[in-house]
């Protein structure tokens, strides 16, 4: 499964440091891609953690994170002195949802579980 295109738009109010803003969005996106496609905590039936190392728990690498298109809206907040809002790892929340919805739409299903591992996608296709 490949993410062909991803567009992220946030309104973080006035951007005090665009480099930091874009860094947060890109980093959050990588986290979201990991949650959507790779990262899964597995326990056996006795409660032993089976994914306690990076050999078993997959984090996205440079080759796994798709490129990202980014846009900004700047509506200054009336509640803060400089008009800024928060943007800590913003895309972490939206990326899993967007990717899950894209897969659900493509396969015509309305319930799926993350992460979308190859085995799970295979089951959805069956």
């Amino acid at each position: 499964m490949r993410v062909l295109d991803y567009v992220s738009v946030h309104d973080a109010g006035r951007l005090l440091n665009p480099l930091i803003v874009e860094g947060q969005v890109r980093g959050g996106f990588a986290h979201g891609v990991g949650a959507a496609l790779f990262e899964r905590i597995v326990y056996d039936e006795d409660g032993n953690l089976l994914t306690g190392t990076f050999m078993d728990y997959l984090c996205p690498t440079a080759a796994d994170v798709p490129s990202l298109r980014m846009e900004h809206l700047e509506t200054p907040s009336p509640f803060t002195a400089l008009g800024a809002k928060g943007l800590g790892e913003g895309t972490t929340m939206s990326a899993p949802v967007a990717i899950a919805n894209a897969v659900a739409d493509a396969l015509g299903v309305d319930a799926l579980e993350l992460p979308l591992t190859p085995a799970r996608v295979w089951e959805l296709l069956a």
Partner: protein
Amino acid sequence: MTALEVTVNGRTHREDVEPRLLLSDFLRHTLGLTGTHVGCEHGVCGACTIRLDGAAVRSCLLLAVQADGCTIETVEGLAANGELHPLQAAFREHHALQCGFCTSGILMAAANLLEQDGTPTRDEIVDMLSGHLCRCTGYEPIVDAIAQVAGTS
């Protein structure tokens, strides 16, 4: 204890070490070079990457005694005469680090890549970078920074 002689960033050190001591712990605890970071300690995350006799290696997968007689470069040796290494300057310009935990390992691997192949393509940079885990940047600014130094951006 085993006698060990290594040259680190141009300076020769003679130390007696436990044979079981990891090279990463030798650098950090015996020599005090804490720029080399220790993440997973089983060779996956890449944070402890150093250069050993001109090759990028994971210092957590080596014993200190295996480096006897070797020449080591760590991130502390990158900047020269108070000037940032071009890679370090490019990382700052592109905001290619946030928490910085993965940065020293990536800088050493990137320096090694550029020395072996002065003009790596973007795909080759991504291929090299896929041996390093970064949780903050989403990788793209890191690729941009290395590609800029390589002149292939």
